[in-house]
């Protein structure tokens, strides 16, 4: 079963200097009970992807083509806003990057956790009992007495875990996490990843995990997609991509500093050059201006090379493995 299937999704933002194509023909799917990681440097469209799925694109944004099929039968790209709102928080939940800001500063944690269950007709008491159970699951010590406390009385890591508890409260089918560990230090990050893994198994949901950390993706995700300038350049199982990356962009990311990748690097390795202006995309391969392997062929759009299984790279020269690059 597939929980989420994104097909040929394109999103444009209307700007004063013309339309900005933030996502172009993005396709991937999230199977049930699986974690899919999304990597790509800042500005490559990761947040736009999430917002398009959630129906929360900025006012100047528009889905120009494609489908977002959720649980087999609903196209989120065309769902009316009320139905979409009904799915958010119930079937699709989200955790954001900043644990400091994710909670309402003037309401107690218990009040917020009760509030998020507004769709259920449990009594206040039962809702609080569920909150306590959820807090216990995310390993907040002494949860009963902490319900009355306010967000500033918790540490950053705890706040992030509370946000996770709130997201998983209604046992959604899909959890979207937008760089949920970027603001945490390394030790807390490990703990949070372990926690997410356990909770996912426990609840039986799928996870769409956005991250800068290749190491975190390797640890948590079964499958991954690599995005560049609003396009999926490579996708496959995490194993396939870490061991046999074929797109030059992915290869560069992985080759940057292998020693540091296995440790946790707070930022995606930086590679030479910058993202193209998304209002004026290169006519051929979008990575061509930064690619060492580019040739005349690359001035026309590259095909999707199927490399066996689910592994796909969008490149004219996807036949050269990582080890061969420097040879």
């Amino acid at each position: 079963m597939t929980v989420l299937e994104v097909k040929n999704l394109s999103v444009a933002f209307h700007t004063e200097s013309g339309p900005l194509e933030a996502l172009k023909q993005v396709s991937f799917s999230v199977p049930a009970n699986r974690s899919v990681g999304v990597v790509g440097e800042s500005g490559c469209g990761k947040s736009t992807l999430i917002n398009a799925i959630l129906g929360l694109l900025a006012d100047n944004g528009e889905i120009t083509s494609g489908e977002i099929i959720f649980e087999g039968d609903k196209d989120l790209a065309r769902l009316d806003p009320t139905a979409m709102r009904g799915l958010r928080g119930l079937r699709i939940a989200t955790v954001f990057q900043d644990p400091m800001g994710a909670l309402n500063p003037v309401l107690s944690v218990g009040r917020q956790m009760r509030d998020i269950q507004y769709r259920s007709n449990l009594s206040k008491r039962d809702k609080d009992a569920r909150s306590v159970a959820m807090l216990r699951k995310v390993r907040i010590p002494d949860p009963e007495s902490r319900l009355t406390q306010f967000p500033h009385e918790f540490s950053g890591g705890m706040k992030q875990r509370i946000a996770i508890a709130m997201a998983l409260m209604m046992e959604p089918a899909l959890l979207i996490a937008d760089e949920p560990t970027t603001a945490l230090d390394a030790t807390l990050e490990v703990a949070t990843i372990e926690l997410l893994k356990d909770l996912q198994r426990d609840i039986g949901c799928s996870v769409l995990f956005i991250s800068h950390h290749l190491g975190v993706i390797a640890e948590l995700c079964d499958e991954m997609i690599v995005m560049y300038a609003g396009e999926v350049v490579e996708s496959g199982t995490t194993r396939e991509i870490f061991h046999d990356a074929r797109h030059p962009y992915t290869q560069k990311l992985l080759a940057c500093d292998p020693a540091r990748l296995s440790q946790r690097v707070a930022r995606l390795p930086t590679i030479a050059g910058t993202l193209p202006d998304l209002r004026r995309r290169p006519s051929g391969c979008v990575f061509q201006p930064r690619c060492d392997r580019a040739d005349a062929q690359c001035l026309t759009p590259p095909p999707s090379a199927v490399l066996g299984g689910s592994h796909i790279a969008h490149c004219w020269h996807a036949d050269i493995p990582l080890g061969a690059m420097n040879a």
Partner: protein
Amino acid sequence: MIWRTVRRIMREPLGAIGLTLVTVVELSAVFASGLTSYAPSKISPAERFASPSLLHLLGTDHLGRDLLTRVLYGGRVALLIALGATAVSLVVGVVLGLIAGYGPRWLDNVLLLIFDAVKSFPTVMLALTLVTLFGPSLYAVVLVVMLVNVPGYARIIRTQTLVLKSAEHVMAARSMGASAGRILRVHILPNIIGPILILISMDIPVVVAIEAGMSFLGLGVRPPTPSWGAILNDGFANIRDSYWIVIAGGLPIVLTTLGFTFFGETLRDLFDPRLKGRS
């Protein structure tokens, strides 16, 4: 919580004066009927223009009415209008401000235009126009107060709403399916109402002055309803031989204004130093 706040206020000299004055004024208005044995509108021609004495602590006016009694009952009117009109202004200002800040851009622009138009109208002209339309009455006073206050309140609320609209916890709430109404009620309003209440407590003296001013000019509450402004007016008419009437009308206005101002400023400095210098 309340006691801690009170103690913090009482530690500041201005705060202590303010809180004491406010309490005295409030209590004497509430318990007016217990504090005096006279009726506020009882005319006794025999006692016209009596100077202050043990019988009439603040003296009597040109109709022989006990001035202390009229001051106490006038306090009821003043505070009722000040608190009532301010509360109504707050509710209307909050609703309009939230709509302007969270609603569509065109609506925001329309509302801003209206706020500015109303605000640019001088208070006295506003009062005269409304009284011409509706006649002098309590409602005219409340309406003037609202038209004076609402645009400012709405603007502050609008700005804060705009800021909070993109706050992380509001985005999080949206991503979890909260409706616009729920976001405004649970995630935006509670975050802005504290500072707003402090600013508004500093507006109460303005409202007291508007009521007194309009009654002084005969545009406010109608006689025989006691009002500090009306007493002041009587006082000026008879200032040559009965100075105490002016004092009876003026003193409560001054004390109330000072009390609320000191109180509001102390609250502001204690709880929201960011607001310092605004009013």
